[in-house]
């Protein structure tokens, strides 16, 4: 039964900004444990698509369905807001491009990581704190920094803290918007490694939006290539990147500088 229904299913997702196309007629299926990459240049519609899939933007047309833990399939776009908010805090995770958008800057790292646990009813300070310390270790942040404010962290550390904060409740689906954007190349590499391990260890499903093909190569099982709001090519990551069919994909692939 479970194997027949994807975790997330989108059909015909379309969103206009006035007369301008944000994204048009996008469909996808995401299965448990699968990472889907959405690539394209800025203006391709990938961020719009992510917004629509996660219920934060209202599409002009289309459906998005999510299979909950209890097996029931819910219509994300027609869910009442309370239910959507609850979903976003428990079974979903969001990693923003700018970690400051996904963190509480005015409280300590420990509080940031512990918040979701407290929202779910955790009431033992010592246990919440050690869970936070544990997670800091898992995202390779010095555990001594549990009582420090995110303001004092480097941007790479802030990004890892954001990831810890989101993953602490082990959500089944994580949306990531340019998770390595704005980071130094070496920091990026380390972050990607971490993400890859976490995805495998936790059996996460994820949709990662990025303009960086290297990110998809490392993390994504499958790819959607977007251009001008439409999906021009899709398939297994290696196939699409090694043997691109669409001229635009070919252009993208060939323009990546080879070291």
């Amino acid at each position, binding site marked *: 039964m479970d194997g027949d229904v994807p975790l997330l299913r989108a059909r015909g997702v379309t969103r206009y900004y006035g007369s301008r196309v944000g994204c048009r007629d996008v469909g996808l299926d995401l299965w448990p444990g699968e990472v889907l990459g959405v690539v394209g240049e800025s203006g391709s519609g990938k961020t719009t698509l992510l917004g629509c899939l996660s219920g934060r933007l209202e599409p002009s047309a289309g459906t998005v369905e999510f299979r909950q833990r209890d097996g029931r399939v819910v219509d994300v776009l027609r869910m009442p*807001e309370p239910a959507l908010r*609850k979903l976003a805090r428990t079974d979903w995770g969001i990693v923003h491009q700018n970690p400051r958008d996904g963190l509480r800057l005015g409280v300590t790292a420990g509080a940031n990581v512990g918040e979701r646990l407290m929202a779910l009813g955790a009431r033992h300070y010592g246990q*919440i*704190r050690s869970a936070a310390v544990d997670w800091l270790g898992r995202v390779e942040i010095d555990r001594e920094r549990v009582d420090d404010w995110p303001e004092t962290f480097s941007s790479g550390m802030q990004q890892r803290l954001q990831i810890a904060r989101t993953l602490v409740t082990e959500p089944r689906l994580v949306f990531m918007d340019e998770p390595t954007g704005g980071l130094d190349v070496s920091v990026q590499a380390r972050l990607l490694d971490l993400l890859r391990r976490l995805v495998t260890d936790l059996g996460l499903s994820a949709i990662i939006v990025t303009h960086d093909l290297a990110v998809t190569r490392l993390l994504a099982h499958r790819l959607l290539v977007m251009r001008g709001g439409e999906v021009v090519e899709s398939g297994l990551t290696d196939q699409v990147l090694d043997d691109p069919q669409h001229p635009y994909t070919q252009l993208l692939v060939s323009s990546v500088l080879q070291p």
Partner: protein
Amino acid sequence: MSAYNFAFLDEQTKRMIRRAILKAVAIPGYQVPFGSREMPLSYGWGTGGVQVTASVIGPDDVLKVIDQGADDTTNAVSIRRFFVKTTGVRTTTRTDQATLIQTRHRIPETPLAEGQIVVFQVPIPEPLRWLEPRETETRKMHALEEYGVMHVRLYEDITRHGHVETAYDYPVLVNGRYIMRPSPIPKFDNPKLDRNPALLLFGAGREKRIYAVPPFTSVRSLDFEDHPFTIERWDQTCALCGAADVFMDEIVVDDKGGRMFVCSDTDFCERRRGR
């Protein structure tokens, strides 16, 4: 004052406020919006409490008004005079003889009884206000029981100070569902809220909210299992009556920093001294 209705407010307004009170009692701890009226007292000086009292008071009530635990602090005097002028009801300083008690910042030390009503004056009703300034957001958070951020605040305090930093207006969980601000009573008074036999009504005039804790309702101060809620203690006893486990006022008696401590609840103190 004969030109004014009994208790100043017109009957329509009283009815409107009573409806809000009934709703509040039906949903313990939930803030009910109401059409607060301008009163002859300033906003921030107890208009919410006054409107609630004015809506429930009847000619046979016996009214006590206290501020900081005392019957004759200036604002308590002012409010008591207002009700005497507009209702002519009997007033008292004795907690055990009052049917209706309007209070600012204290719960009387004398235990309350079934049938009594206590009306609290509330400046800021919203417990999440310092964490989230927008009303649209906080209403959603209450509706969805999104209280994680409240405990984040407590977690932070313990991390930084080893204690929760809130000394008064300490947030509580009412009937296991809504988080509520008990008004700026010292946390010392919070345990009195739990399963109190009296009806507790809370009025915020400026912010236009009414909420309630019905008799015998569970009220738990927020804490962590390993950092349980504690109340204030003094080494001293009351210099006038010798009481120990009461909330004390600190009086500076000379210019060398000499101090003495006396009961904040003047009625309680007087009765212990046999006055």
